[in-house]
């Protein structure tokens, strides 16, 4: 509560929260496309590759203006992406190797430049190394304004080309046949991704920025099948994780920002993977259990029907022990029989003797018909294939 109040009164805290929210929202939105297009790890490569851009921008201009450094970072990240594309398209080197290579070589070159800068006389280089792990507490208003401006432009562009980017992500071939300039759209979307990454570097750092691209969309994906909703959810998750991580880190000594934000967003991912309706693991487990239960009940009912079919009367009672013996791997059938009785399909006749009710006979025949029908359909399908 105290922290919450400070959010509105404390200048530093407010700046940090705003910056982290911007970063989370923008990377969440554009990360959605990266995750859907199976380019999750491209974010990793871009963020690592940004390091030499930052160092070169500083080396050439001597300025530490956020816009200048971000521009350098963006150019380097963009160049790395183009090189990855060129290497995969023009040689036998595969995508993953090209990514790993560009990521580490660019980063290594960035280190060379950083250490070179550090040894220069009079160079006011302090602060460049915050780009490694990010430092939310060091954000000032100027940084946040730049982040928000660039992020706004990126989101606006995403909105303007919504339909085109959707097409690119889900069916690029179809888009090509409709005459959309798919290659340029690809380059454009990648450029937006680069912007989203560059915005976050100062807060999260180059090493962990990739998580901000992957995690919020991965969480959002569990809750919805619609692109629009996924983008919005992803922005919310990203912003929430960004703010909570940045505030935790700013309020605690010795708690680096980047890792804290990453842990926050990962908790959101784990929660979503477990809890989300339909896709979530708990949901799936419950559903499996329920359908397993239903199938076992049906099996017992049909067994009883099969036994009864050998008598004149379909409601001829049978012993529970027989049903137990017919389903050796199912365990005792008593609970299932009781459940069937509750549904009115069977009735107890004597202790441990059960008979079908008219409703049960109808249900069993319906099940048999639907199974026969199912098989009949399948037969027909197979014939169709043969032809």
């Amino acid at each position, binding site marked *: 509560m105290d922290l919450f109040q400070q959010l509105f009164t404390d200048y530093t805290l407010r700046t940090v929260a705003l910056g982290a929210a911007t970063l989370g929202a923008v990377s969440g939105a554009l990360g959605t496309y990266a*995750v859907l297009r*199976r380019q*999750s*790890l491209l*974010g*990793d490569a871009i963020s*690592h590759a940004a390091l030499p851009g930052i160092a070169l921008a500083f080396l050439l201009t001597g300025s530490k203006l956020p816009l200048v450094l971000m521009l350098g970072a963006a150019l380097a990240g963009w160049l790395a992406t183009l090189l990855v594309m060129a*290497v995969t398209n*023009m*040689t*036998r*080197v*595969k*995508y*993953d*190797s*090209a*990514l*790993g*290579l560009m*990521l*580490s*070589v*660019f*980063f*290594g*070159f*960035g*280190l*060379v*430049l*950083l*250490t*070179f800068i550090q*040894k220069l006389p009079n160079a006011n280089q302090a602060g460049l*190394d915050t780009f*490694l*792990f990010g430092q939310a507490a060091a954000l000032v208003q100027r940084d946040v304004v730049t982040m928000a401006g660039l992020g706004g432009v990126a989101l606006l562009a995403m909105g303007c080309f919504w339909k085109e980017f959707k097409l690119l992500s889900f069916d690029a071939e179809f888009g090509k046949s409709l005459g959309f300039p798919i290659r340029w759209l690809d380059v454009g979307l990648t450029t937006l991704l680069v912007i989203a990454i560059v915005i976050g570097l100062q807060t999260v750092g180059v*090493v*962990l920025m*990739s*998580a901000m691209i*992957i*995690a919020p969309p*991965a969480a959002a*994906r*569990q809750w919805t099948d619609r692109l629009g909703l996924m983008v919005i959810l992803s922005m919310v998750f990203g912003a929430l994780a960004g703010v909570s991580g940045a505030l935790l880190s700013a309020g605690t000594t*010795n*708690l*680096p920002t*980047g*890792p*804290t934000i*990453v*842990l926050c967003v*990962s908790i959101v*991912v784990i929660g979503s*993977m477990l809890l989300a309706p339909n*896709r979530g*693991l708990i949901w799936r487990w419950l559903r499996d259990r329920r359908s397993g239960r239903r199938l076992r009940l049906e099996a017992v009912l049909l067994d009883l029907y099969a036994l009864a079919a050998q008598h004149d009367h379909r409601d001829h009672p049978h012993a529970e022990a027989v049903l137990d013996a017919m389903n050796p791997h199912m365990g005792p059938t008593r609970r299932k029989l009781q459940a069937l009785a509750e549904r009115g399909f069977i009735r107890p006749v004597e202790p441990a003797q059960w008979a079908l009710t008219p409703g049960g006979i109808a249900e069993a025949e319906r099940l048999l018909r639907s199974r026969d029908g199912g098989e009949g359909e399948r037969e027909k399908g197979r014939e169709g294939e043969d032809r």
Partner: protein
Amino acid sequence: MTIFQLEIQLVAAVVAAACALPGAFLVLRQMAMMSDAISHAILPGIVVAFFLTGDLSSPLLIIGAALTGVLTVALVEVVNRTQLVKEDAAIGLVFPVLFSIGVILIARYAGDVHLDTDAVLLGELALVPFDRLVLGGYDLGPRALYLMGVVGLTGVLFIALFYKELKLATFDAGLAATLGFLPAVLHYALMGLVSVTAVAAFDAVGSILVVALMVGPPATAHLLTDRLARMIGLSVLLGVVSAVSGYWLAHALDASIAGSMATMVGVLFGAAFLFAPHRGIVAVMRRRVRQRWTFAQKMLTIHLLHHEDRPEAERESRIDHLQEHLQWSADFAGRVVRQSIQNKLVIRTNGHLALTEAGRRLAREAIVQA
């Protein structure tokens, strides 16, 4: 060159060679990014083992980190199995979490020991000669050299013993499984080797440049050869060259040694990308240009053969007619004719072309081929 410099280069070369061995298989199996994941994710293992032993050079650290590496692979597999996210996202979700835990542990509880985050990320080769292995009063050289030597030899041994199995599992996993080679076991063994190599190497070069040494030289070698054994050998060689030249680059710029090594890895790859004998961009371009001209010459001979000894031959064999019939520009047609004459495929008489015997043969062969 002082003895220190020699020792640093020696360690760098051994690190590069040890990384290249499992790296070759990572590149071929399209799992290069696993090296990135593992080299980041082993951090918490190192930190926890360090807290337990209080000694950075304890072998427990290696074991702890190797276990974390295998845990990473298993976790990626678990996330992947849920089918809730795609495989690349699974990798990208798992390793930042583990790495973050490691960095936070260091920042909070190990602030003032050697184990700081910069050292983890970047490594410091220049400090390697100061940590020496002393046995019974004798100075045997830098400890890292022995550590990496043992790890490198393990890699050599592993690959030598399971060469056939690795080869088969890499190029035809399905067949390997049918023949009972247990590709899953091999997979985890390889990942264990990657983890052990990464942890031993990262004290020297840092976690990110381990990736450069594991992926870069094998990717370069992949452009230079088609044979597995040669590719592994070339990877080791390229790694060593990057290490040594990187050291001297760093020396000249007074910059990070590990960073310079990675830069040299990039330079070597760039050179192979452009100039590799068969697969380099230049070679491919030249081949395309050459094919364009030989194809045009074939077209010309086929065209002439087609109309030879026919009523229209007079009209069709005129040079200026080629522009119209084959839709060639005058310039292009002129060059094709000149080359064809030079190659003795056609002869020119008063603006008309006639096939030579060689030209006729070429045209017939081309038709049969098509």
